[in-house]
């Protein structure tokens, strides 16, 4: 989470919100969350969902793909 927040402060193209999932069970149903953390990235009408704790390079690669219009 802190990693992603640091990204948001380093780039004007990125907004990152961390949501306490236990307080919003409706979001678990809505986004079919079965692992914590679950990261949802959106750029325009493209969306990627990544479940579980993933290494930074993998998250950054997905971020870049999405920003470049690749659903992956």
């Amino acid at each position: 989470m802190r990693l992603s927040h640091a990204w948001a402060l380093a780039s004007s193209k990125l907004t990152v919100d961390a949501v306490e999932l236990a307080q919003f069970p409706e979001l678990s149903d809505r986004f079919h969350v079965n692992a914590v953390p679950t990261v949802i990235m959106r750029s325009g009408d493209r969306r990627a969902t990544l479940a579980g704790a993933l290494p930074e390079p993998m998250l950054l690669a997905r971020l870049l793909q999405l920003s470049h219009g690749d659903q992956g």
Partner: protein
Amino acid sequence: MAPVGRDPGQPELVRLVPGRQLVYSTHTCAAKVKDMLPARRALLEEALQEMESLVTVWVDGNDQALAVPDLEELLHLQPLLDVRRMTPDVEPWLPTDRYPVYRLGPQDAGAAPRAGFVGFPAGFMLDALCDLAVALSRGDVPASPLARDTLRQLERDVDVKILTSPG
């Protein structure tokens, strides 16, 4: 103190309404706040003394959401932190009617707040906010070289939501 107003174009200082009933007094947040006083607050204030410039924390949510105790704790950190209310471009599905969204970002003109928290216990949220605020004020954002290089290559805006728990 005056009630909070809402004017997206002209953010106002956040003020709690005296005597407002807490919306979720049984929430873990209340216990965390109780534990935090006053030594916890002193630690946060000490950390914030390291800031080299004032950082604004933007708070969004309806009046009910703004009655949470963690916001009161945040207000205690003024004027070390500049706490303001605004209506950022919050996603429709983000439930700001129950909990405020706390966001901070660079203070350069026109910059939108970019790093946010929703629904976390006060102790955790304030720790994280203060860490980020100090780093931001010192121009020492802890993004790795790989992250900085990747972020420079972003072509379109990306919105990221991390659904998680503080544990």
